């Protein structure tokens, strides 16, 4: 029949493979080792890793493969399945080969399992116990190396235990792109090591510990902390940034001792950045807030008190006459926390001036109204436009995913940037624009008639066909968000099918925005105006007009127009781009309540401080940059009387005489699912079902017709006016580094020392022109402030631009930036 003919001529969807006597359908192109695993047959292996290329080094996975010419020993990590293939994984010959390899691996492996961190979860130990010989036939002296040696601040290497599987070295070069560890020497004396005095300072170094099949690589923060059989674990989501990497949180004696990456296809593939992996140390810090604090008598500072006293004081202060109430922060919260605070603000505090962003992101209605792309879609796009901060610094695992797509699958990236980033060498084209001119750059890019040099023409050529995804964020905090918005609006206008992956960094910032922690926005991606009727029916009366964003709130507070300011896990003095404004705002606010895990510069000046639980200490859900909802789970008890933010919201409401209408996470989620349109259909049952492992993306079709929304951003192409360039000034670029002065790094002992500081990076040409030597301390003057910084020559920085990282220890870029200015120009002089 015709249908049959068609079916036969198409490429086969599956091939029939017989493994250990059972025939099943494998996917064409699949490796035998992977196909066998799917069929329930585990072939032992050490070097093969499903997320890296096959190297066939360990030879442990040798099996007998017969493709019609008789059985032959083959490494199953190297052979692709073929129709009619017969595989024997446990025949005499296969077993003998595997036993032989195991014996070889043990020939030089020390017998120090009792003192090895890997003991109990060691593939080599497990294999040996299961199949190995009882006694060694090796009587010669084993190979010796000094043990262990630190190859970075975070990773120690015991070369005697190493079985040279190439996993860590392959990860470093292939996945992370940081080939700082390598095989050195040859043959039996080969070792893994770094170049002398050039440590393995990769942001991803901890992954090598996780994938090491023996105890050769150990994590300094975990060494000798626990034995695998003493560990308890839950599956959770990392909220260090907003990529949403799935993790296992492991604890011992009610303390978190380790995070491991969980491999899910759409997000992190098992990888984590080191900040996400080791940042849990901060939650164990002795500096955690364990009880509420209130301002004592004048000059006495903050003193410990009970929750009831603190909550009463908070309510008293927030409801006092003299101005309105505002809430800044919320990206640290779970979705449930955010919903509770969103509702609290509107119905109990009577304010719409709530903002989970700190003037460092993009306008909420804009971000929430963009057509959204997933990470997979970004990786599979025909062209990716990158208009974002340095992803390796801010969203590290997204950088890994894109890096893989570029190096292994030919993803073409057009980078628009003000200075070199980690993506520059990977991009098909990397284009430079002057800070503030993002929109003009996009206009030039899209304008076929514009004259431009070959790289712009090449980019234009790339854009001319196929699907386009744009990774969009704030490339620099010294540059107003408006220029990015204008650039995106142009893309939206000119490229009908473009979709966006927002590069906003903070843990659950997208969840917080989506649940209404943004001025003019209500839960579920609806504006205050669109959702007013729907939510008024459910919640009661809502604020009449949209409130202020963080910049507006701080300006109002500085002018004495804010009576009650709630810092919801935020530190404007450190995180807001304009420190002078933040300083005046904290001083000018009538009454400040801080809800946080640590005291910070801002909350030290608060009137009431309420201790909050953090990741690992509470249940709930979080939302990543894709809008993917995944669970966070509690593994340990919060310190002292610290509690989840939603409970604090309920208690505050209670004292304000308002019943928020829920007393459990389940009840909150039920309300979210019922009321917030974009969450419609994401039931609690789904969230605890199997599909939740990879997180749940809400239905793209949108909510039922009776709900408001969905929000659509309507592009309005507009000009951004930027002051002309002063020939004597340099235009400032300020992005974040992975390790900064934030509490998550500062309170994690093994990360604290990694913040690199903030030299002023300048093109060598400009340094020459200014008569400044590389490494010289210079005076940097902006319209608002003057500070000293060390100037460093950097060829990656274009002429006319100066780069200074944000929020590094000491005075920095935030002193120089005026939030009202579209760009920040600085004069650089010798002192």
């Amino acid at each position, binding site marked *: 029949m015709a249908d049959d003919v068609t079916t036969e001529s198409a490429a086969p969807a599956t091939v029939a493979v017989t493994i250990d006597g059972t025939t099943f359908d494998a996917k064409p192109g699949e490796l035998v080792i992977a196909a066998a695993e799917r069929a329930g047959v585990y072939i032992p292996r050490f070097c093969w890793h499903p997320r890296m290329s*096959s*190297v*066939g*080094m*360990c*030879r*442990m996975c*040798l099996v007998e493969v017969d493709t019609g010419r008789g059985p*032959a*020993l083959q*490494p199953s990590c*190297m*052979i692709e399945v073929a129709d009619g293939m017969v595989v024997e994984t446990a025949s005499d*010959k296969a077993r*003998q*080969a595997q*036993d*032989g*390899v195991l*014996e*070889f*691996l043990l*020939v*030089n492996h020390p017998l120090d399992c009792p003192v090895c961190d890997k003991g109990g979860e060691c593939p080599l130990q497990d294999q040996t116990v299961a199949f190995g010989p009882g006694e060694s*036939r*090796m*009587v*010669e*002296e084993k190979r010796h190396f000094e043990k262990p040696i630190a190859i970075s601040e975070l990773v120690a290497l015991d070369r005697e235990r190493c*079985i*040279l599987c190439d996993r860590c070295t392959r990860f470093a070069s292939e996945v992370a792109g940081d080939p700082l560890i390598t*095989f050195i*020497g*040859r*043959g*039996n*004396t*080969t070792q893994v090591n770094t170049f002398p005095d050039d440590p393995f300072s990769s942001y991803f170094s901890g992954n090598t510990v996780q994938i090491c099949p023996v105890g050769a690589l150990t994590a300094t923060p975990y060494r000798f902390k626990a034995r695998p059989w003493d560990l308890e674990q839950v599956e959770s989501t990392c909220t260090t940034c907003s990529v949403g990497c799935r993790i296992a949180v492991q604890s011992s004696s009610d303390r978190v001792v380790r995070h491991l990456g969980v491999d899910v296809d759409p997000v992190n593939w098992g990888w984590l950045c080191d900040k996400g992996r080791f940042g849990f140390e901060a939650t164990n810090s002795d500096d955690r807030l364990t009880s509420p604090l209130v301002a004592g008598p004048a000059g006495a500072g903050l003193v410990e008190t009970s929750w009831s006293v603190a909550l009463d004081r908070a309510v008293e202060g927030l409801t006092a006459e003299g101005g309105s109430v505002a809430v800044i922060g919320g990206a640290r919260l779970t979705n449930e926390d955010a919903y509770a605070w969103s509702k609290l603000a509107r119905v109990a505090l009577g304010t719409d001036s709530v903002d989970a962003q700190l003037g460092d992101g993009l306008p909420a209605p804009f971000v929430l109204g963009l057509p959204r792309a997933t990470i997979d879609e970004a990786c599979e796009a025909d062209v990716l436009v990158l208009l974002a901060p340095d992803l390796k610094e801010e969203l590290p695992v997204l950088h890994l995913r894109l890096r893989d797509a570029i190096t292994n699958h030919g993803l073409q990236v057009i980078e628009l940037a003000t200075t070199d980033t980690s993506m520059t060498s990977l991009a098909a084209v990397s284009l430079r624009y002057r800070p503030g001119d993002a929109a003009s750059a996009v206009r030039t890019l899209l304008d076929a008639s514009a004259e431009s040099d070959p790289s712009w023409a090449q980019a234009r050529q790339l854009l001319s066909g196929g699907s386009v995804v744009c990774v969009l964020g704030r490339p620099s905090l010294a540059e107003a968000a408006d220029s990015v918005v204008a650039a995106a609006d142009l893309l939206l206008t000119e490229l009908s099918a473009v979709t966006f992956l927002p590069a906003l960094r903070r843990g659950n910032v997208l969840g917080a925005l989506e649940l209404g922690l943004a001025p003019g926005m209500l839960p579920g991606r609806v504006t205050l105006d669109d959702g007013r009727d729907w939510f008024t029916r459910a919640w009661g009366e809502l604020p009449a007009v949209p409130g202020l964003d963080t910049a507006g709130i701080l300006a109002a507070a500085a002018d004495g127009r804010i009576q009650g300011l709630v810092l919801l896990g935020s530190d404007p003095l450190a995180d807001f781009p304009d420190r002078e404004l933040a300083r005046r705002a904290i001083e000018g606010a009538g009454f400040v309540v801080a809800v946080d895990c640590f005291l910070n510069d801002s909350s030290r000046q608060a009137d009431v401080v309420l201790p909050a639980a953090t990741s690992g200490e509470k249940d709930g859900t979080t939302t990543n940059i894709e809008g993917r909802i995944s669970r966070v789970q509690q593994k340990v008890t919060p310190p002292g009387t610290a509690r989840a933010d939603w409970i604090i919201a309920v208690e505050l409401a209670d004292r304000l005489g308002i019943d928020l209408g829920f007393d459990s996470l389940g009840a909150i989620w039920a309300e979210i699912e019922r009321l917030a349109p974009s969450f419609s259909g994401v039931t609690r049952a789904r969230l605890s079902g199997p599909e939740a492992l990879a997180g749940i993306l809400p239905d793209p079709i949108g909510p039922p017709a009776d709900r408001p929304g969905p929000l659509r951003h309507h592009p309005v192409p507009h000009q951004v006016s930027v002051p002309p360039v002063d020939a004597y000034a340099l235009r400032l670029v300020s992005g974040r580094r992975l390790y900064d002065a934030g509490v998550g790094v500062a309170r994690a002992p093994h990360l604290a020392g990694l913040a690199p500081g903030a030299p002023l990076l300048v093109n060598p040409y400009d340094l020459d022109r200014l008569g400044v030597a590389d490494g010289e301390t210079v005076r940097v003057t902006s319209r608002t402030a003057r500070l000293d910084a060390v100037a460093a020559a950097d060829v990656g920085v274009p002429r006319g631009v100066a780069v200074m990282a944000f929020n590094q220890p000491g005075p920095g870029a935030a002193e120089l930036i005026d939030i009202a200015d579209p760009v920040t120009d600085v004069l650089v002089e010798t002192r």
Partner: protein
Amino acid sequence: MTVSDVAPIVSARRDDPAALTIDGYLASGGYEGLRAALARTPAEVLDEVKAAQLLGRGGAGFPAGQKWGFLPPGKTPYYLVVNGDESEPGTCKDRVLLERDPHQLVEGVLICAYAIGAAQAFIYIRGEMPLAHERVLTAVAEAYERGLAGRNIDGTDFSVDVVVHWGAGAYIVGEETALIESLEGRRGMPRLKPPYFPAAIGLYQQPTVVNNVETLSNLPWILRHGAAAFTALGTEKAHGTRLFAISGHVRRPGVYEVEYGTTTFRDVIYDERYAGGLGDGRELKAFIPGGASAPWLFPEHLDLPLDPSVVGPAGSMLGSGAIVVMDDTTDVVKAALRLVRFYAHESCGKCTPCREGTTWLATILSRIVRGGGKADDLELMLDVADNISPPPFPRAGWADRGIEPIAFPYRRTTICDLGPSVVSPLRSAIERFRPEFDAYLALALDPARTGVPVEVNRGR
């Protein structure tokens, strides 16, 4: 079988210093092969080479024309890489060609590049051969000067760049995929198979032909004289001539070009025109027929012809054309140890069985030689060897004892043949000369001598 008197093909100019210059080379018919090639289409040249059935002279003996034919159409650029990393113990014939007739190689390279349409050719020369470098570099420069290399070769529209590349001391780089890794600036570790030939994915992941120096040096002659003249020499399965290096306990060690397939081991070892036999009163104990990786042959195999299609089924290989002769004064235990140490030293470290197994074997055997052997050491070694190269391991038959030959090649648990190669000397020596090992074991009267650490890799 008598010794053939055919004129040499590749070593005709070896004793003519004039051939080192391009003028001298041209005077002796040089570059006529190239011109003959350029007068035809690349496809015709490829057909000619295929018709000549030129077997690779590097060790594996794969037909060169067939190898070229594996290049996938359209996946350009193609590259040509010349394997001049001669380092198989006992082998020194490519060095002769590199040092004494460099233009012949360059001409061969150009012919091959023309036939396959190579974008660039790389002549990878072993690092420890500076004289070869100097001679080949000079030859390439002269060829460029005369318009015989580079752009528009000899006035045609054929262009190819020839780059002379340095090695730096690693036996394993002789394996063609390791050679490519090395040429890419990496550690010379063999690549995984499949793909089995670099023709599919080679240098810079592009289709690549890797040929040995002697193989390519045959091309000028084949193009000048035609495939028919070439196949007229030798036997049905081994055409032309071949260089053999005969070393060890012979009167006149040397590199000799003989007709392929018709000459026998007895001829090249005993004939006065070649190695001239063993020293006075000495008896042949064993000989290695094709480089250190080949299982050993013994006096009863002397009349085997130098034909891979005969030697393979007989249990060994002609490999790299290196015949090492051991007379009755040879301490085969020490000889085996030296070769086992060689493979331990040269293992790249990639595959576990080779990396750990070769060194383990070297350590045990070293201990035995130092008088620390234990009763079960020989069985242990053979068992360890089986885990590198699963049985049955190829070996020569012993007609007098009714032991049947096991045909080449060996099986392996490793990526390349370096690992299994360690088994050749070990198994050959133990199986044939077990009493000599037992004598060493008997030395071990003092049990305290066992387990002494033995330094294996000296000089590093």
